[in-house]
């Protein structure tokens, strides 16, 4: 067999074997067998010395092209496999990633943020007041006379000394007006306290947002417009509002606002007690006595105020039916938000 025949059969054998290869390990074996230091090709090269001198150049050329071809084929095959190999060996993409703890904002502060954002859109600034209040700001300045049954509307906690825990965010109204001249356009978020037994429906601490707008020519129509816009932005653009006469000492006329039940589209369900309406907030035109207590002229200025319970609204929206879960702080609950 001439050396040329041998070269031909090596090439043929190689190609047969190459076709049968199924994994990267076999490629390495094949490579070693043919192209290794003591491999078949090397071995052929070492036989050049035995070839007749006139043929040596030709044999050398053929061996080189054999080596090149084999190297090329091996590399090609290797690349084919390494793509799939990487998948199966180096990285198992099915393994889970790092488990970042799911941080979450409390649903109530989230709701407050959302509501304040809406009121900011509507041109309200944010104001604050203390949680421990004086009788004057919580009641007196808001037209709750001493020894008046209106005080029974809100069960009050009294602190040592003469302080009380504010029963509503309304004292922020009179605190703010005492310090600022009209026009005034603010919302005031914060905690309020009621001395009521804790139940699924009521908790001794909850959050309110108070709204106040005072200027010349402010009317009940503006109040309706503002609350209508707010409710549509918060609950969705199809909700309807209903105003019913009510009584708060610091507003007159006063109204309770019902929003059409967005859970049943007003058809009636368990949550709205089959009325199709949900009671959500109280509001009214500022009583002249409140203006007098902060030194505003009630003949010159009108204003409206409203107060809403954040927990109630958030619970409706999120479908929570026990207020206590909001203050329990189980992370299984918190992480849902």
């Amino acid at each position, binding site marked *: 067999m001439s050396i040329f025949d041998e070269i031909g059969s090596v090439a043929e054998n190689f190609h047969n074997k190459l076709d049968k290869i199924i994994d990267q390990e076999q490629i390495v074996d094949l490579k070693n067998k043919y192209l290794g230091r003591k491999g078949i090709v090397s071995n052929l090269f070492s036989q050049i010395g035995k070839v007749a001198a006139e043929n040596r150049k030709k044999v050398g050329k053929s061996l080189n092209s054999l080596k090149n071809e084999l190297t090329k084929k091996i590399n090609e095959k290797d690349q084919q496999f390494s793509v799939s190999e990487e998948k199966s060996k180096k990285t198992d993409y099915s*393994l889970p990633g*790092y*488990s970042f*703890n799911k*941080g*979450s*904002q*409390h649903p109530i*502060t989230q709701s407050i943020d959302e509501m*304040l954002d809406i009121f900011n859109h509507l*041109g309200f*600034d944010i104001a604050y007041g*203390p949680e*421990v*209040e*004086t009788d004057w700001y919580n009641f007196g300045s808001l037209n709750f006379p*001493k*020894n*008046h*049954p209106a005080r029974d*509307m809100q069960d009050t*906690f009294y*602190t*040592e*000394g*003469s*302080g009380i*825990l504010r029963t509503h965010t309304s004292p922020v109204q009179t605190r703010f007006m005492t310090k600022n001249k009209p*026009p005034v*356009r*603010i919302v005031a978020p914060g*905690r309020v306290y009621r*001395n009521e037994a*804790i139940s699924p429906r009521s908790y*001794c601490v909850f959050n309110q947002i108070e709204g106040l*707008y005072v*200027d010349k020519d402010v*009317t*009940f129509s*503006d109040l*309706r*417009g503002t609350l*209508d816009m707010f409710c549509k932005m918060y609950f969705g653009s199809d909700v309807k*509002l209903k105003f*019913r*006469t*009510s*009584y708060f000492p610091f507003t*007159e*006329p*006063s109204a309770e606002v019902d929003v059409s039940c967005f859970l049943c589209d007003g058809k009636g369900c368990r949550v709205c007690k089959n009325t199709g309406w949900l009671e959500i907030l109280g509001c009214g*035109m500022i*009583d*002249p006595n409140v203006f007098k207590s902060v030194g505003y002229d009630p003949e010159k200025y*009108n204003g409206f105020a409203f107060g809403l319970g954040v927990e109630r609204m958030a619970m409706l929206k999120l479908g929570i039916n026990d207020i206590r879960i909001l203050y329990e*702080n*189980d*992370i*299984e609950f*918190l992480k849902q938000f």
Partner: protein
Amino acid sequence: MKVSLSWLQQYIKIEDKPEILAKKLTLAGLEATVNIVGKSVPDKVVIGQVLSVEKHPNADKLSVCKVNVGDNEELTIVCGASNVAADQKVPVALVGSKLASDFKIKKTKLRGIESHGMICAEDELGLGNMHEGIMVLDNDYEIGKNYNDYLEKEIVFDIDLTPNRPDCMSHFGVVREIAAITDSKYKFNKININESGKKIEDLTKINIENNEACPRYTARVIQNIEVKESPKWLKKRIESVGLRSINNIVDASNYVMIETGHPLHTFDFDKLSGHEINVRFAKSGEQFETIDHVKRKLSSEMLLICDSEKPIALAGIMGGSFSEVDENTKNVLVESAYFNPAVIRKGSKLQQLSTDSSKRFERGTDSNDTLIYSQNRLTGLINEVAGGQIAKGMIDIYPKKIDEKIVKLRFSKIKNITGLQIEKQEIKRIFIALGFEITEFSDDNISVKVPTFRPDIEREIDLVEEVIRINSMDKIPTLRKINISVSENVDKLHPFLKSIRNLFVGMGFNETLSNSLVSEKMAKSGIWNYKPLKIQNPLSKEMDTLRTDIIQSLLANLKINVLRKREDIRLFEIGKTIEKESRSETGAKEHLNLGVLVTGTVWGLNWNEKSKPVNVYYFKGIVNLICEKYGIDNVKYKETKNCENNSESVSIYIQKKEIGRIIKYEISKFDKLQLDYPVIVMEINLDTMFKKRNKIQKYREISLYPSIMRDISVVIDKTKMAKDLLDEIKTNGGGNLIDVIIYDRFIDHEKLGKDKISLSFRLEFRSKERTLKDNEIDKIMEKIFNKLLTNYGAQLR
């Protein structure tokens, strides 16, 4: 407050369906719901007629009846009652009816005979206690009809009243509202009483000590009455509004109160010493037993009704047991008075006694027409239901008449307040319907005399409200376009808090919201040693103090989570903490704080690497991040003195002010919870952070030249503080040293020697003007090393 539809209909024609009327009342401020009261039986109980009765072949005490229940249906029913007989009309519970939650009528075999229903006794239908035999009905009951159709029912409105409307705690008040809302007429009955007895002046005398507390007192006397059960109609009325019938005198008194809204009182005249009435304040410490048989200690603020010797009633609140009308009473004195609302409210609060009477007096009753009408109404009614003779005349002590106020309403004011124009004639109609007298009606104004039964109306704005609530609460336009005056101030605190929240949420913390009412013990454990502010009237001992820090709240939240086996807990909360401060107007000083708590590992349990427990340095990193974000520098840490057992703590300072603390609690502090990792907490005062933050963040020029990094590792005594070495490096690093990081720290007795520690620093140099040269940095590094050597004995490693 309950009002009955049929009672209202005595005075006014009502055309609306009850549900519609309730809606209208609610819109006008009387939140009303419709209730049907009265007796009822379960569904599928019908009228049947017994056709035949035969003895049960297998049981002595049972009968087999054929019963016609209408629609040509003839049922076989086995009955155990002895009084069952042919031709009787009886209530039959059909198969499928549910007589009680656990008692459903089914087809059953009784001693071999199938029974298709049950003939019922009174108690089985919930109509009474009778169990002796079946109910036998009158012959005019129609076979096959539902028994329910024959039971009397009453439609009653439950009205949730706001405290400004005492006048509506009565049928009269609600009638006036309905008249105004539905534009209809009403009429209250005139009273005629037959004064056939002695002259009242010869029987009794009245003396009022304090006319301000009791501006008016009237009395009548009725003699030779008979106390007995009330007639059926009276009983029915009283029971329909949820009261219990007692006897004809008490029921009559309650009836008139519910009708007119004016509370009245009847005394057993013969039990009054000296047959006289004295109205005075109690002497401090005076004792008195009320009809609920509670012996009460009185203070000098309690107004009393007394006879010549002793108290007989807490004025306007409750009568005494001694002078109570009983079955032997022959003569009664009827009191109709007006008491000062504030006096009654105070008394009611002091005695913690709220009654139907005190609720009305403290909200304000009518000292004029209603008072007199009610006096005469009750006297006449007692005469009607208990007989006797009415004494001639009425004693009426009313030294200073309370006049009706005249209030003017400018028509323009309605538009000014509501944005809505309302017809003048409509305004006039509303006031007349509500019982106001018009004293002026011009182009621009209307003036009205406000009846004294409306104590809530004193000013123009009150009249505006009357018009709006009757005419147009639902008609005020909703503006789609609003003109506003925008505030020039923009609050910065809320965005600040929001960004802190976002920061923590991003780092994987869960925000909590905790009750600020805690136990005194918890408040005293607060890390700031604030004097706790206590609550005088707490809901419970567990909530009798305001929290003094956030950490205690977070520790309580931790407990709940650990008990439920939650892992890797990271909590934060932003809220007020309260300190007792007697110099403040509220008695408190409030601090806005941020609390943070972590227990667990940095990464949680995972396959990738062994995760380290969170430690104090994790928190220092957070503080740095916050401070960097808000441009606060000069943050210093100092070990906190006097911290609790099982804990170590470091205080955070900004410019000498302690603004926060990081505390590490060992597992041993929570032995009951069986924690796996220590608990690290932090609390920071946000008021200070907010104040000290860099308000204007300005651009700093960035360098366009490359940095040079140099590392230096030194071995020092363990007692040396890393911070001091860092400061030393910074002081000597020159203006181009822009950052120093400690990237390695270890202790190794064998390699480094005992009580030695190795620290490795990486220094970054960069200039804004040029590329730095290696040899100039070499010089600086040499200088730094020499300083570390001389000042800290540092050796190169």
